């Protein structure tokens, strides 16, 4: 097999995969965008040296303890501190003034992955003098990623990128203010996570569990079909207080989402919206 080849995923094996995930584990992948899901599954099979999806299906059936590991592989953990810095600048300049006067600031990070996004938010709140009244809820379907997020420790090789992103948001601010280096790791100060709760939660199948002034869901909707995007965005908008803020990924769109009519755009380029009052 040519080195770049990914195993083929026949539709019949994919159907079996959907069935196993749904009946054994209650996780519904049927409304994930098929092209990216198939590619992701192919990548996982290749990494494990499995020649077909059926072999993975068998493993999922016979080894339930394997599930967390598999979820960690199939979900995409691409994230970074202040990813898309201009979006964070816009959030601070355009959304924070609308939230600053409120008595409390409940923030939900949907699909927080390995936690860099919630650390970015904690720093943004600290630097804006809003951290003391904030409560942050960080959820993900991936338990392993959540474990990692709670450690707030990242490979030291990311330091340059993170410093660069931080400075694009706060010129002159040094990453050293919030981090220390230890045994090849870049470790964020535990105070940043003092007001953060990490919770295992599947946005596809579970309801929101609270009301929020600010919801971030960035680069998660891209993995869903338009139908599922519509369902998920409805949940997100339902969970916002009137006047609350929704931020999605900069290339994500609410085109397919009926709940979009309950939002007004604060910044169309950075995809920041406000729920109508």
């Amino acid at each position, binding site marked *: 097999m*040519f080195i*770049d*080849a*990914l195993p083929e995923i026949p539709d019949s094996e994919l159907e079996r995969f959907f069935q196993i995930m749904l009946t054994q584990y209650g996780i519904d992948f049927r409304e994930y*965008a*098929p*092209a*990216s899901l*198939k*590619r*992701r599954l192919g*990548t996982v099979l290749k990494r494990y040296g499995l020649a077909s999806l059926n072999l993975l299906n068998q493993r999922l059936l016979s080894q339930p303890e394997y599930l967390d590991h598999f979820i960690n592989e199939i979900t*995409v953990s*691409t994230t970074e501190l202040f990813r*898309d810095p*201009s979006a964070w600048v816009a959030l601070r300049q355009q959304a924070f003034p609308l939230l600053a006067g409120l008595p409390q600031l409940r923030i939900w990070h949907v699909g927080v992955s390995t936690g860099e996004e919630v650390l970015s938010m904690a720093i943004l709140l600290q630097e804006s003098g809003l951290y003391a009244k904030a409560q942050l809820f960080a959820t993900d379907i991936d338990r392993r990623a959540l474990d990692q997020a709670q450690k707030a420790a990242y490979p030291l090789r990311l330091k340059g990128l993170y410093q660069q992103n931080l400075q694009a948001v706060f010129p002159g601010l040094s990453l050293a203010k919030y981090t220390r280096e230890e045994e090849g790791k870049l470790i964020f100060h535990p105070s940043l996570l003092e007001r953060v709760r990490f919770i295992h939660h599947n946005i596809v199948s579970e309801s929101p569990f609270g009301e929020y002034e600010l919801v971030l869901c960035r*680069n998660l*909707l*891209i*993995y869903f*079909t*338009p*139908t599922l*995007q519509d369902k998920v965005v409805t949940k997100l908008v339902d969970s916002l207080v009137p006047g609350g803020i929704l931020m999605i*990924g*900069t*290339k*994500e*769109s609410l*085109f*397919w989402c009926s709940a979009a009519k309950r939002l007004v755009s604060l910044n169309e380029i950075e995809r920041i919206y406000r729920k109508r009052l």
Partner: protein
Amino acid sequence: MIFQRRDVYLWLLGGSAGSFNPIRRFIQQMPFQIHVAIVICMHRLRSLRMGMVEAMGETKGWVISEPDDKTIIQGGHIYIAPADYHLLVEPEGYFSLSVDEPVHFSRPSIDVLLEAVVAARWPRAGAALLSGANKDGAWGLYRMYQAGYFTAVQEPSDAEMPTMPQAALSLFEPHRRFTADRLVEVCLHALSL
């Protein structure tokens, strides 16, 4: 949700270092075709989110954009893969984006785009691979060739960086080899088939 967009011919262009000017020239010279969507996957700096559309200059009536996730594929449009996202074609007739790991150190990756077209069994498509300093795109183009789509590769001697075209030619002989100044002609030939 049912889409009826699969009648659009997808003309796919992949390139990396040394491909910007040939692709730009192609975009400026290619006559408008209402039934064709041109999809461009070019390696680029991840930090440059804006400006690529403007840098392409005037076209002969094409609507040019960087698609958002789940944008419906339409004829008469030129789509440029956005920086730092993979661009995929979905069977139902829209694009998907992903932030999966880079392929050949590249996101967007040409392989990811071309393989998605094959996996979607898009009815009509053709692809050309241009200059580049790595081998992203070679495997995807080969998969398109195997699936019966029209394929073309820039002559390595004509390419500013021959690695990418050479990687494709080491796998198979495409329907056409071309020099950059003939890219419009190659595309029109593919459309006539």
